[in-house]
């Protein structure tokens, strides 16, 4: 596998993000594999931002270790990034703005281009300096300039011929600049791929599942889901920006109670506010989907950095005991798939389903060949529209599988009141006048057991609640969610060094099938790899199976794992096993 990592660096407001998105689109359209991730801060202007785009000739699992091509739009780009430059890295910069004296000229290739002057001459617009630099970078990578021009026409065609031509002209200047030559020549396979981030794939998954209602309060890194729904409002979905996350989840419960497929989303801080509502959905047995895109905590933490530290929190959030499902997608394509399925699970088991994203999964962009659109089925579960049995409708009928028939308001003869208080089969409260009577004690016992029985039913009927054995080996990495991708990359690196390591990864974590999971893990040499400080998945595994995982690679510095980082850690552990 051949790959090259380009990092575009500058300040907020320099157009780093749009430049990165442009390069990703060009590569994905040309049969190349792409993995993009950006570093930024909670500030609108200034700061130091970067966008790393890794381009390869086969599937990529992370944004890569180090920088092969640096586009330095300001001096900070050199100062902050020099420690990340790989040997022989190409450094593209404007000598009128950026000094490279601090870099060892024997280790790097300097490419000084008067980006600003060229941009102004070509278009009159100083921001076009990015495009000049991109043109040069594309030449170094070996991507044909026609590919760029085609993407530009698609992106800016609406804005008129002048905008298109200015971009094309600026890029050509960089591409053809004296001394700029192809250094990598990574070849694509001709297949056009989608360039998607996790939140976009999740949103499209929700759309495909017939999710009609999405409520949220803006919070990084979940806000782009709200924006996705807002920009697709003309496609028959209803986005609602609420006054807070409490309103978001309660509106979602209202919409779901009335029969719409409904979702809300936030990050950990907002999820904290949603906790009471989560219990309401559990008690009313209302199917809702809740997204928590984790960022580095606790409290406000690092709002623009990633972590996987909310697992135990979302598994146990809210008072009392009620059924719920927790799933963490393992890739961008997976974000589509599990979200589409989350709505079926919510409807089938009439309980909240929590999708655990994280900033890395929400925001990094992958080239994706296909999403499983054809495999999406819509199953609304036990819904009735008519009272066939006569008599008063028992919304909370006690059943063997714990699931009762559900009716939407508007259906005559099925009227009921759903109560957050403990209730009987009709929904009538047992809390007010009769709590503590022998009859009520019996009702409470049966209702609580009925709800919890749904967890057993899920385990019995669904195939998804077992981890994936992605690879076998003498040792096994155990991980979950977004860390699966860099773990897979680590396996390749270890393999190239002659070390055979396996991987067991979790997407559906709650409920956990104790027996099957135990069978899968026992007797194996396990190493827990998680992006948190305490090994939360390992704790869940121990809780469910009694199996303790003694060795671990954990970190909570705000940055996602790279394959190399995991591979090095695993090699160390194996050495001393």
């Amino acid at each position: 596998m051949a790959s090259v990592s380009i990092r575009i660096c500058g300040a907020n407001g320099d157009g780093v993000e749009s430049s990165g998105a442009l390069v990703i689109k060009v590569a994905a359209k040309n049969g190349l594999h792409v993995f993009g991730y950006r570093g930024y801060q909670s500030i609108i202007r200034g700061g130091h931002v970067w966008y790393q785009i890794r381009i390869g000739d086969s599937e990529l699992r992370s944004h890569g270790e180090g920088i092969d091509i640096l586009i330095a739009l300001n001096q900070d780009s050199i100062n902050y990034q020099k420690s990340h430059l790989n040997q022989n890295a190409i450094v593209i910069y404007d000598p009128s703005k950026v000094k490279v004296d601090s870099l060892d000229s024997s280790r790097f290739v300097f490419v000084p281009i008067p980006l600003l002057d060229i941009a102004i001459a070509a278009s009159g617009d100083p921001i076009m300096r990015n495009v000049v630099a991109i043109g040069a970078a594309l030449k170094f990578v070996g991507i044909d300039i026609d590919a760029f021009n085609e993407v530009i026409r698609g992106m800016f065609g609406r804005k008129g011929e002048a905008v298109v031509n200015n971009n094309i002209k600026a890029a050509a200047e960089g591409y053809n600049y004296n001394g700029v030559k192809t250094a990598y020549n990574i070849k694509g396979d001709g297949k056009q791929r989608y360039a998607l981030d996790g939140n976009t794939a999740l949103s499209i998954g929700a759309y495909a599942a017939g999710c009609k209602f999405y409520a949220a309060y803006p919070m990084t890194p979940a806000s782009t889901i709200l924006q996705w729904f807002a920009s697709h409002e003309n496609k028959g979905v209803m986005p609602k920006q609420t006054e807070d996350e409490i309103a978001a989840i309660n509106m979602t419960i209202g919409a779901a109670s009335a029969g719409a497929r409904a979702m809300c989303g936030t990050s950990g801080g907002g999820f904290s506010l949603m906790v009471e509502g989560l219990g309401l959905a559990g008690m009313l047995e209302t199917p809702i989907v809740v997204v928590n895109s984790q960022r580095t905590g606790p409290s406000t933490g690092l709002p623009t950095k990633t972590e996987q530290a909310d697992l135990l929190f979302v598994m146990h959030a809210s008072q009392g005991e009620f059924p719920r499902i927790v799933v963490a997608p393992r890739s961008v394509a997976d974000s589509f798939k599990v979200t589409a399925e989350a709505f079926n699970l919510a409807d089938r088991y009439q309980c909240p389903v929590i999708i655990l994203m994280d900033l890395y999964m929400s925001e990094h962009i992958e080239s994706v060949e296909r999403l499983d659109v054809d495999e999406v089925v819509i199953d609304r579960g036990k819904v009735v529209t008519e009272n066939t049995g006569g008599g008063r409708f028992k919304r909370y009928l006690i059943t063997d599988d714990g699931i009762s028939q559900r009716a939407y308001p508007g259906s005559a003869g099925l009227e009921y009141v759903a109560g957050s208080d403990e209730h009987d089969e009709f929904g009538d409260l047992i809390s007010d006048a009769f709590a503590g009577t022998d009859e009520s004690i019996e009702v409470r016992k049966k209702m609580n057991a009925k709800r919890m029985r749904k967890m057993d039913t899920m385990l019995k009927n669904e195939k998804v609640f077992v981890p994936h054995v992605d690879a076998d080996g003498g040792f096994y990495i155990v991980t979950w969610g977004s860390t699966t991708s860099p773990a897979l990359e680590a396996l390749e690196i270890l393999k190239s060094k002659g070390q055979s390591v396996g991987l067991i990864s979790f997407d559906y974590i709650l409920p956990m099938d104790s027996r099957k999971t135990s069978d899968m893990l026992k007797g194996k040499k396990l190493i827990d790899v998680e992006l948190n400080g305490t090994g939360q998945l390992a704790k869940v595994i121990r809780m469910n199976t009694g199996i303790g995982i003694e060795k671990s690679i954990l970190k909570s510095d705000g940055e996602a794992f790279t394959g190399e980082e995991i591979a090095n850690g695993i090699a160390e552990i194996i050495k001393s096993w």
Partner: protein
Amino acid sequence: MADVINPGTGATPKQSFASSIKGIWCPGCGDWSVQAALTKALQGIGIERERIVIVSGIGCSSAMPHPFSTYGIHSLHGRLIPVATGVKLANDDLTVIGTGGDGDGYGIGVGHLIHAARRNINITYIVMDNEIYGLTTGQASPTSLLGAKTKSTPFGSIENPENPVGIAIAAGATYVARAFSGDPVHMAELIKNGILHKGFSIIDVFSPCVTFNNLNTYDWFRQRVYKLEQAGHDPSSMQKALERSLEAEQTGWSKIPIGLFYKTEKPAYSALDMTLQKGPLVNQPMPTKQQVMDILEEYK
């Protein structure tokens, strides 16, 4: 038309709307009058019971949905407005009525009130305002009067009472009224007109707590309330409505107006929502595979 109350076809004025469940309130509680007035209002409009959803929070008054044979959601303390809003947004054909108390709506949930009002969401919100926390056995509420002695303010409350009518008007509610449980006929008319109003309607109801509030009793209210309808008040004026909302406090609670404070016509939320122009959300079709593929093309 997305924001028009469906007149109903099957219901007769005699439809009782009563379920087999009896209200939980103390004998003499003002909430019994609210149940009667809401029943009368619904009978007056004639909507089928299956198209009515009564959403409540937590508290004595939030037990309101249970004695009704309509659909209902007895939700969380302070959260009835977002739940009711979600129901209404998902199915605009439904008549959605919120019922709760002053602690629920003016204390823990007051933020939602302001946003429901400014959205002008087409629901009717009945607040049974007894100036006390009843179900938790008698602590001060956001509308307890200055000096009120309660279990949590045994030496007298030092906090000024909230002005919910003024807040609702200022926040953009398009139908703001106040009723008194001592006059259920008047209340029923205000509720009925609130339900028929296209937009956010709120009816604050003085609903005395006969067990824990021995200050704001039926007699106390009877001596002080007067009807705006009989005082030449012009409910189309926001200024006049705000002035009236201040009157009780300005007169040292000697003159308390009840009736319709403010009513104005503005497009209801559903009339402006892009998606709802195609009908109730729950009736809209699931996407086809082709529609999903078309959206994916944006990312190539």
